[in-house]
């Protein structure tokens, strides 16, 4: 779950991390009011989840409240990388002497959390790690032991943090790691970490991604409509489903992420496009019902393609749920199915006897049949 900058900064503030003064607003008048309160030049930042906001013109400086209002008016409602700007963050403009990069992320190959620092901030860290790796300093952290103070000292000194800023830097990095651990983050990033002309460190930007698997123990994580790209994706999340809206005519309902991806590819190979990616998490009836409702509720869907290879979820249990849901939803759209896995005889019997749907013998034939039917339906 990726958070908006203003949400991440609110979490940072709770952890005592230094962030610029400011507030998130939803209309231009409020932006002017915040600038007035701050009483100094401000920066007005579009709040979107996608990257590359700065280059796309999403960050504006404003010398006075009127300029802040104008900037907010320009940004609000604008589209940035396909995402509407629903709010802007108005913050004091910092007097920056130098920029650093600081983050805690995960190295899956170790595997371990890694504290990462660079003396060049405000940059694309992945690009920098590729081109000038000597400027990027990393410290993997053993989870059982935690981050040790001296590891932070080593790293910051190596990255060239000036001696006068070392004590604050150690505090900031230590707390950022604590936040990462306590909040079940996948990424906690400050880029740039600004060293002001007055000599203090401030998180000019903030990025926070919370691990989806940990949401059950992180109830504070916001999950509003704005956090999703599409109404259907938002609705799917309410039911614990992972649904991704695509633009095609074949609605997909497959068991397992890998088989879903492969089916997606096969549809494309046949020259058609899938309407969605959907991993139907479990075997139970409500999941099947909500998953089907989402897929069939998409007006672009012409044909429904069901592809199961029952595993943890047994084919008979899945197909029982799907058959009941199909009957309840009473769809008129055509259905193609490939049913395999544990309990497949019973599963095929249910589909044939109750719905009149014959299972295809394999994925390829089912995909070809679905694509053909979708073409005919257009």
């Amino acid at each position, binding site marked *: 779950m990726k958070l908006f900058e203003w949400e991440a900064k609110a979490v940072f503030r709770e952890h005592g991390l230094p962030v610029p003064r400011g507030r998130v607003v939803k209309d231009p008048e409020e932006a002017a009011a915040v600038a007035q309160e701050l009483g100094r030049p401000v920066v007005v930042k579009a709040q979107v989840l996608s990257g590359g906001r700065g280059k796309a013109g999403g960050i504006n400086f404003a010398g006075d409240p009127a300029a802040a209002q104008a900037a907010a008016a320009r940004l609000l409602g604008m589209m940035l990388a396909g995402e509407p700007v629903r709010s802007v963050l108005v913050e004091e403009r910092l007097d920056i002497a130098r920029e650093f990069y600081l983050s805690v992320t995960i190295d899956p190959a170790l595997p371990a959390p890694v504290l990462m620092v660079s003396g060049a901030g405000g940059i694309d860290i992945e690009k920098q790690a590729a081109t000038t790796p000597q400027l990027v300093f990393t410290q993997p952290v053993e989870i059982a032991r935690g981050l040790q103070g001296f590891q932070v000292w080593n790293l910051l000194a190596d990255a060239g943090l000036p001696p006068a800023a070392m004590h604050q830097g150690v505090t900031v990095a230590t707390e950022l790691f604590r936040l990462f651990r306590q909040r079940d983050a996948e990424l906690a990033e400050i880029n740039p970490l600004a060293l002001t002309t007055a000599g203090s460190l401030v998180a000019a930007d903030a990025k926070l991604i919370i*691990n989806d698997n940990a949401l059950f123990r992180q109830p504070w994580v916001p999950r509003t409509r704005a956090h999703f790209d599409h109404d259907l994706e938002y609705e799917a999340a309410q039911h614990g489903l992972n649904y991704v809206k695509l633009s095609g005519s074949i609605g997909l309902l497959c068991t397992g992420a*890998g088989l879903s991806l492969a089916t997606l590819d096969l549809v494309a190979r046949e020259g058609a496009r899938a309407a969605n990616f959907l991993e139907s998490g479990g075997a139970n009836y409500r999941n099947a019902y909500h998953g089907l409702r989402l897929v069939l509720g998409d007006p672009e869907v012409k044909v429904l393609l069901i592809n199961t290879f029952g595993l943890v979820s047994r084919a008979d249990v899945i197909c029982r749920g799907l058959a009941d849901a199909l009957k309840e939803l009473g769809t008129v759209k055509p259905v193609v199915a490939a049913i395999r896995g544990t309990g497949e005889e019973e599963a095929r019997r249910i589909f044939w006897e109750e719905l009149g749907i014959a299972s295809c013998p394999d994925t390829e034939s089912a995909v070809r049949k679905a694509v053909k039917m979708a073409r005919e339906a257009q």
Partner: protein
Amino acid sequence: MTLMLPAGGGVVVQGITGRESRFWTERMLSAGARIVAGVTPGKEGEVVHGVPVYHTVQRARRRHPAEVAVILVPAAFAKEAALEALEAGMQLVVWLTDGVPVQDVMAVVGEARARRASVVGPNTPGLAVPGHTMLGFVPVWLDQVWRPGCVGLMSRSGTLSNEVASHIVAAGYGVSTFVGCGGDPVVGTRFVDLLPQFEQDPATRAVVLVGEVGGSMEEEAAGWILRRGYAKPVVAYIAGRTAPEGKRMGHAGAIIAGSTGKAVSKEEVLRAAGVQVAEVPAAVGGLLQGVLQ
């Protein structure tokens, strides 16, 4: 004994008394797994399909020699269960649980490294030696899909492994050992950990790698083969060529970020390492026939 499985090979199933666990315990037993005990705190004294239940792994192990733990407990308790297995001295932990917080996974894999034990998973269909044993959710009893044979199979996905296995069988071969690495971004056993084991396994003549978009396990495997060479032919299939960027596609590991992790770039590096890459799952069979002539 066979690949990944410690000698002796007694198995303890943690979380054995759950409804689904009972079903899969019975399936594992009938597929040949030597399950000697089950564990559910508070249920010591119960019996599941003839398997005695204990409060803890350690208590189970006092009475029943065992080296392998199969974990079927819910995500919220999965970390403690895995640490318990490692602490009790288990050499292999098959961590079937889905939805484990990534920081818990790191803690457990870190502990396993320190103890020189192996963890397969989490979020894995488990592992299987068709005709011999099965630890997890692999339907080895479907003989159109799984048969004993000479192909080592490793995969990040569950259902897709079945799909590919069925094409291996259709091409006239079978599987020596199957290991599901798991669909999460952080897992205990990666392709590079399995490559040397398949290379040394006399029952394995060729290896099939089933990858997907996101992460870097396939790139690591390619790099390893390129640096070191590999004594057996390798065939790969990568799912998700047409997945959109920046979106999570089911598996938490399946996010493409920047240039790394794309299915086509994975295919490229694998080809550069001499791996035969199948464009569709069904092509795996033909490529195997080519390399195993």
